[in-house]
């Protein structure tokens, strides 16, 4: 079964450092999402791409977070500088067309110390 690939699986970084996460969606999935999940809560959308274009980044803290999907395939989410409150699980998901389900990757668990 096709999967959404994410790396790294775990990341520990010091406050004020830069950190990046990578996501490779299921082949052919035009829509890609980055979600953040704080411990004990449900995931919340950070950014949504349709091919290489950003559709929704209204919840992305743009002073420190950036996301790109240059060729409309894989995507990178960056945080610079990282803050203690950024410690969370970062989940990537993709979907094919409307009215179909989303598939999530295994996530990157970030700890900022």
């Amino acid at each position, binding site marked *: 079964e096709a999967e959404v690939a994410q790396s790294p699986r775990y990341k520990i970084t010091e406050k004020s450092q830069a950190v990046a996460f990578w996501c490779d969606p299921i082949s052919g999935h035009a829509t890609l999402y980055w979600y953040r999940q704080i411990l004990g809560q449900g995931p919340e*959308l950070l950014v949504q791409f349709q091919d290489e274009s950003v559709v929704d980044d209204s919840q992305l803290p743009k002073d420190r977070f950036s996301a790109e999907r240059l060729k409309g395939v894989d995507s990178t989410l960056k945080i610079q500088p990282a803050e203690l409150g950024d410690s969370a699980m970062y989940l990537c998901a993709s979907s094919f067309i409307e009215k179909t389900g989303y598939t999530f990757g295994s*996530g990157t668990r970030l700890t900022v110390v």
Partner: protein
Amino acid sequence: GIQVEQSPPDLILQEGANSTLRCNFSDSVNNLQWFHQNPWGQLINLFYIPSGTKQNGRLSATTVATERYSLLYISSSQTTDSGVYFCAVELEDTGRRALTFGSGTRLQVQP
């Protein structure tokens, strides 16, 4: 924005018991999914069910879109069913096509 409420927040069962998890949502939706998040954080898609009833083994789900709720049934529960169950919805007729999650039901199945 859309509100997604799940109940109960926590549930403890003995192995073999049945359970029903509920999801209420405040607006019309064109996508509703149930996910199981395992202890390693992986979100596993259980059902894509904007309306109607589906079954997959010991699990089944029903969504009554006109009354804005969905139910997830777990029968003959096993310890491997433990984890957090999330309901997530996507608003109808908006340009923002992304899932909004509830706060989850944490299930613990004891042997």
